């Protein structure tokens, strides 16, 4: 089974999110959406237009928005709380106390994740959010790889009764899933099996480039890898990943996030405790982000298909 990126028009996961919310508004009368002056960017605006009575414009007050969403959740509402990943995860204490430790089923949406946002620079590039959210007991941490997965994820969250964080991209993502794909929370999604020279794990913005990189490597006679999409960063599918890691002997992770605390860290933690295989973490190497075009930044951090392919080849050869 080999999936490559299809020719369908790429869609940003924030856009798929906005569409999904709007579509679910009728079915779920308790759905309430909150935004902090970014509804045009997070795409919650679509829901706001369709269901104005259930949209709360909170102004530029992320802390107050999170607390308000917690109160709504504790009284039976289904709140989606939207902002940029950097701003919303920056209100960590509110997420920790008012959401997580209160058991408030707030669905926290962090858009514009990673260096993939481009020119705005480091202050707007959520690069630590996965690490923060992962540290909270009971927090479900998700990151979809394309529009199909995003829409299914949002639907699953409607009936999920505990706190969740979803990390979305500004940039458009190529579709990697076929029609009929079923998102299963907590289960590794194998996207391609070119071979078992290594297991290449990706998430969010790096899913498309990783799938491409794997295809290039296979075509170029390079290492033949299996590609896994880690859409659920917490709870990480330790069993699923370990099983494939045993087969492949080497694991490489790639993400648009600081390698400290992100998906790669979660994978390392899971595998190290089973004393399995060597792991290489690709991603933002514990440096600040910067301004540039998204393409330039993906190039710089080796998050594009070429960079990933090079790094995979180098690391596997060097060992």
């Amino acid at each position, binding site marked *: 089974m080999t999936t490559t990126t299809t020719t369908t028009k790429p869609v940003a996961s924030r856009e798929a999110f906005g569409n999904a919310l709007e579509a679910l508004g009728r079915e779920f009368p308790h759905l309430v959406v909150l935004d902090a002056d970014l509804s045009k960017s997070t795409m919650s605006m679509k829901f706001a237009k369709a269901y104005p009575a259930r949209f709360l414009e909170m102004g530029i*007050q992320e*802390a107050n928005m999170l607390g308000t969403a917690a109160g709504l959740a504790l*009284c039976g509402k289904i709140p989606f709380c939207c902002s940029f990943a950097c701003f919303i995860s920056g209100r960590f*204490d*509110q997420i920790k*106390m008012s959401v997580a430790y*209160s058991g408030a089923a707030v669905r926290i949406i962090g858009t514009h994740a990673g260096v993939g946002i481009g020119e705005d620079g480091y202050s707007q590039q959520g690069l630590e959010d996965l690490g923060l959210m992962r540290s909270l007991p009971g927090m479900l941490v998700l990151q979809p790889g394309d529009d199909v997965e995003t829409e299914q994820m949002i639907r699953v969250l409607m009936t999920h009764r505990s706190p969740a964080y979803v990390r979305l991209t500004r940039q458009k993502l190529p579709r990697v899933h076929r029609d009929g794909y079923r998102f299963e929370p907590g289960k590794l999604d194998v996207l391609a099996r070119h071979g078992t020279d290594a297991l290449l794990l990706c998430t969010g913005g790096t899913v498309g480039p990783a799938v491409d990189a794997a295809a290039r490597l296979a075509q170029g006679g390079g290492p033949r890898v299996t590609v896994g999409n880690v859409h659920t960063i917490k709870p990480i599918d330790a069993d699923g990943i370990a099983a494939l890691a045993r087969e492949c002997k080497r694991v490489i992770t790639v993400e648009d996030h600081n390698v400290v605390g992100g998906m790669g860290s979660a994978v390392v933690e899971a595998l190290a405790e089973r004393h399995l295989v060597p792991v290489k973490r690709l991603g933002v190497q514990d440096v600040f982000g910067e301004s540039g075009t998204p393409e330039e930044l993906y190039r710089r951090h080796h998050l594009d298909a070429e960079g990933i392919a090079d790094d995979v080849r180098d690391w596997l050869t060097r060992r």
Partner: protein
Amino acid sequence: MTTPTVADITQRKPPAWSLPPLDTPGSRAIPVDTLRRFADECRLDIVEMLCRAGSGHPGGSFSAINLTTTLFLDEMRHRPHEPRWPERDRLVLSKGHAVPSLYAPLAQLGYLRRDELWTLRRLGSRLQGHPANMLCPGIEASTGSLGQGLSVAQGMALAGLMDGKGKDPAFRVYCITGDGELQEGQVWEAAMSAPRHKVHNLTVIMDCNGGQIDGLVKDVLDLEPLADKWKAFNWHVLTIDGHDFVQFRAALQAARAETTRPTAIIARTTKGHGASLFEKDLVGWHGKTPTRDEANQVIAEILGRLG
């Protein structure tokens, strides 16, 4: 040193409170004498549980107890036998360190077994050092990092409006903050937000006891003019003596009559109110617990009052 010998307070049987049903709309016109006695019974349990725990916050618990007593007995609609009754009024204690001022009335009303009070702050107890709603019945939100409760209360109040009929909310929401706590920026985010969202079923009660850890509030970071600040944020503002049951009841009635704005009640209180030992050193008794002798001294004073 004069150490009055007092009976073990844990063996004291609390009065059988003959209260009307508590799930009817307030005010329930509970006699002031009942409120006063209930608050003092709670004070006895608070000083005992803090003495046994060996850590905790007596000053702010004593200053808030007349407020929580009035809310639970006279004002809020709730069902002690059904803590999660969906239509209940909600109380969020934003000044989480004063949580004994919730545990004691919750025990008197039957939410908790009274002997569970003596497990406060012990390993495995539902009675955490600061409120934990996932563990303890009657606690609506986890707090303890100051400044967050009013936002949560606002969200609850919004849910109450969404589930209500017309201008009638499905339930009302109360939030007790400290005064030192008002130094937190998030409080003012919520202060700006609630009138914008017209959450008239939300009442914030500021337990202004004047003290905080590093000193008096007016010296550490003064809040005045406090009423003017809330008025400027478009709240319905009332200032009362926070130990006067009649004044507090009237303020809550006025809050209920509001149909457009949230209400802010500035309750002027004394830290440690009801125990002369605590009142002598407002700042000192913020986060220090009494020794056995000191506790007995406080207990004797309260028992003397109860007669």
